[in-house]
């Protein structure tokens, strides 16, 4: 059965280098500082990757495979909710492209093959702008936003 799909494309310009942007996405110690999550993998084609929330319980929220890697310019991963991991139809795809632009970089995140009307489509459409804005702030000022949910009461 073919699902009806939708896609989102997000772009942000960051005063940084492709290497730093790529590292911020793929290195857990960096990602947790602005994403509130870690992306854990050895980042070789065909390897698994996991999106782990940085709190005490450390739940794995998203899983998938590494589909393409060309550091520091391109990374393609498949993406599904951890509870849906067994269902091939639940997988969507995320492409990160990091290109030099004037004195910094242009980061494009395309999330496609998302099922129309799904909870995942709704969730990521709200989530990506916040994550990318926080990444930009982290790399340019040293401080991202708290997206871990640790300090909800603050």
């Amino acid at each position: 059965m073919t699902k009806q799909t939708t896609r989102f494309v997000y772009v942000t310009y960051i005063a940084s280098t492709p290497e730093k942007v790529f590292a911020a996405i793929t290195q857990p110690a960096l990602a947790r500082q602005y994403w509130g999550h870690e992306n854990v993998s050895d980042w070789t084609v065909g390897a698994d990757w996991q999106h782990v929330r940085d709190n005490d319980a450390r739940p794995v929220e998203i899983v998938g495979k590494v589909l393409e890697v060309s550091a520091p310019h391109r990374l393609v991963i498949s993406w599904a909710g951890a509870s849906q991991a067994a269902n091939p139809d639940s997988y969507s795809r995320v492409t990160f492209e990091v290109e030099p632009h004037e004195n910094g970089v242009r980061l494009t995140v395309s999330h496609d093959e998302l099922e129309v009307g799904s909870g995942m489509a709704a969730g990521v459409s709200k989530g990506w702008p916040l994550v990318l804005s926080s990444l930009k702030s982290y790399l340019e000022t040293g401080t991202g936003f708290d997206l871990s949910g640790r300090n909800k009461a603050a």
Partner: protein
Amino acid sequence: METQKQAAEDLVFKALGDPTRRVLLDLLCENNGQTLGQLCENLNMKRQSATQHLELLEAANLVTTVRRGREKLHFINPVPLHDIYARWVRKFETQRLNLLHDLKAELEGGEK
């Protein structure tokens, strides 16, 4: 870097300062990835003026385009709006929370 940032923000506010461009963003929110033809139809507008509005939105990074064969698809890109939110909205929310904290402390007769 600061002037670059300011120039980027100027473009966002300029792009948002026009009702037609705000409608274009609304249309893309409803149905992302539309062609110029689809947007013109929804706006009842000529291609030439719609193109000009889209160029300003693209320059402000509020719209991004992806080629699919001969077509160019337009996607809303809300990332710059979050940058503005972080600067102009979030810090006032923090301040309001601090005010509430002070008020509570005062009413309860405790230390500030």
